[in-house]
C-alpha cells in the first residue's frame, strides 16, 4: 500500500525530470542557457561533499529549527489563552486578521533595519511568519472542543484548569500539529529569503547569492534543490508524527486515509 504510493511518487518525480531534460536538450532554443535536470542533480550530489555548502545548510537549518521552536513556544500558549478567553479573543481578532495576511518576506527589510544582529534578525522573521498558522490553528482547535465533554467534566466538579488540561488541550492538539506542519514550510521559505535579501556569512541563500554573481545557474538550482528536498523531508516527518500521535483524531473526524 505505502510501497505502491512511494513508487508512484518516485515515478512522478522521475517523469518530470525526464520531461524537463528532453525539453531543455531538444526543444528549447540553443541560445537560451539553462542547466538540464541531469546537470542540476549532478551538481546537487557534488554539493553533499562541499563543506562550504554544508556549513551554509547547517546555518540555514539551525535558523529554521530555532525560529520554528520559538514560534511554537509563543503561538501555542497564546492560542490556548485566547481560545479559553473568548472576550479577549474577540478584541484581538481584528488585529490578528490584519497582521496575518501581510507577506512576511516584506518585513525582512524592516527587520534588517531594526535588528543589528544578523542571526537574531533571521530567526525573528521566521518566528513572525510562523506564528500565524500555529496561532490560528490553535484557535480553531480550541473552538472545536466538544462542549459536551467539557460540560461532563464540569458537572463532575472539575475546575476550569482541569477541563483545559484534560479536554481542551488534547482535543486541540491535532490542530496545533497541523499548524506546525504548515509553519515548517513557511519557516524554510523565510530562512532562505532572509539570506537572499540580507546576505550573511553562511547559508543556503548566501550560497545562491554567490552562485548567481558568479554566473553559476547550475549551482543556484542545485542549492535550491536541497532546500526543496529538506522541505519535503520535514513535511513527511511531521506528517508521520501527526499520524502516530493523533491516530484517534483522524478516526473521529473521519479524515481520508491519504
Amino acid at each position, binding site marked *: 500500500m505505502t510501497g505502491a504510493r512511494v513508487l508512484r511518487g518516485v515515478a512522478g518525480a522521475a517523469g518530470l525530470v525526464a520531461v524537463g531534460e528532453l525539453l531543455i536538450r531538444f526543444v528549447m*532554443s540553443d541560445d537560451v542557457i539553462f542547466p538540464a535536470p541531469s546537470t542540476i542533480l549532478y551538481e546537487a550530489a557534488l554539493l553533499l561533499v562541499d563543506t562550504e555548502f554544508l556549513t551554509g545548510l547547517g546555518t540555514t537549518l539551525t535558523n529554521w529549527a530555532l525560529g520554528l521552536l520559538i514560534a511554537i513556544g509563543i503561538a501555542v500558549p497564546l492560542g490556548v489563552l485566547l481560545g479559553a478567553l473568548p472576550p479577549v479573543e474577540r478584541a484581538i481578532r481584528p488585529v490578528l486578521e490584519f497582521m496575518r495576511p501581510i507577506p512576511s518576506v516584506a518585513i525582512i527589510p524592516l527587520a534588517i533595519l531594526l535588528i543589528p544582529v*544578523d542571526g537574531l534578525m533571521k530567526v525573528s522573521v521566521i518566528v513572525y511568519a510562523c506564528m500565524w498558522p500555529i496561532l490560528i490553528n490553535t484557535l480553531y482547535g480550541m473552538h472545536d472542543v466538544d462542549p459536551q465533554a467539557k460540560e461532563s467534566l464540569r458537572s463532575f466538579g472539575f475546575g476550569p484548569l482541569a477541563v483545559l488540561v484534560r479536554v481542551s488541550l488534547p482535543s486541540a492538539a491535532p490542530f496545533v500539529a497541523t499548524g506546525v506542519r504548515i509553519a515548517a514550510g513557511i519557516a524554510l521559505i523565510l530562512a532562505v529569503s532572509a539570506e537572499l535579501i540580507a546576505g550573511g556569512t553562511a547559508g543556503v541563500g548566501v550560497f545562491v547569492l*554567490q552562485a*548567481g*554573481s558568479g554566473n*553559476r545557474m547550475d549551482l543556484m538550482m542545485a542549492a535550491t534543490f536541497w532546500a526543496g528536498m529538506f522541505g519535503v523531508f520535514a513535511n513527511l516527518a511531521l506528517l508521520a508524527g501527526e499520524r502516530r500521535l493523533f491516530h484517534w483524531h483522524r478516526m473521529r473526524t473521519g479524515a481520508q486515509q491519504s
Partner: protein
Amino acid sequence: MTPKLRRTAVALGVAVALAVTGCSGSDSTTSASAGANGLEKTTIKVGAIPIPDSVSVYIAINKGYFKQEGLTVEPVVIQGGAAAMPQLMSGALDVTLQNYVSGLVAFSKGQKIKLVAEASQGAPNTFNIMVPKDSPIKTVADLKNKTVAVNTFNNIGTLAVETQLKVAGLTKDDIKYKEVPFPEMGNALTNGVADAGWMVEPFITSTQTNQGFRKLADTMTGQTENFPISGWSVTEEWAKKHPKTLAAFQRAVAKALKDVSTDRKELEKALPTYTKIDAKTASVITPLTYPTELTANRLQKVADLLLEYKYIASAIDVKSIIVPAPPAG
C-alpha cells in the same frame, strides 16, 4: 585561556607597534581592552558582494594584511550595496562595499556615510551594452524606442547607458529600461524581454561565448573613461569612533589594491576563494582597474556626472564624503 592568550598577544602587539613606529600613543598603552596598535575595534564585519569589485578585501584577508594591522575581518556576503545600507546604519556591518553612484546619491539624500577606500574602477570592456547575435541593433542610435535591461534602476548602469545615449544624440526618454538581474539577462535578451542589456563580467564573457552576443557599446568610454565604480564605505559616526581601526583597514586594503593592480594573477588567485567564478573563467574575463588610492579628483567626476544627468539635485563636493587614507607606513 583564550582571553589570556589574546591579552598577551595584544600586549605583544602594542609593544612591537611602539618599538617599530616609535609612536608616543598615550591612549594605546593605557587601555587594556584596546587591540594591537590601539585599535578601537579589532574584529570588524565587512559587507562584500561576491564579484571582482570586492577582491581587495579578500586579498588582504588571504595574505594576512589585516592581521598585520591587528585587525580581524569577517567578510559578510551581501546582495548589493543598496541592500547593505540598512545593515551599515544598524551596525550589523562595520564597513560595506558600495558603488559610488549609490553612495553619492544616498549621501545627497542625507545618509551620513563616508567613503574610506577604493575598491574598483572601470576599464575598457568591463561594462558593456550587449545585444543578442541576431539583433538588428547595430549602433547606440538604434536603441531609440527600444528596451534596455539594467540590473538596477537609477544607478551606475542607467547612468553609464545614458552617457552613451548622449553621444548618439538620445536621452533616457528615448528608451525604456527593464530591471533584470545579471544572471538572467542573457536568456531575457534571447527571449526578447529586452532588446539590449547593460552587463558586467563574468556575464559579458559568458553571453559572448555561450550565446553569441555582440558588444554594442563599451560604457566605460567618453565621459565615463576610467570611471570610479566602487569603494568601501562606513557611517560618519563609525569613522569618528574608530579612527585607528579605520586607518588600519585603509592601510591593509591599499596594500591589497597595490598587489592586484600590478599582477593580474592576484585576481585570478583570489576570485575562486570568495566567488563561484572558477579559475578558468577568472583567467579569461576582462579585469577591472584597481587604483590604490581614493582621490577626490577622480571621484568628483562621478558627482559631477550625477548632477549633469539629474541623479542628484545639487552639487556635491566629494571632499566632504571621503576619509583620506593615512600616510603610508
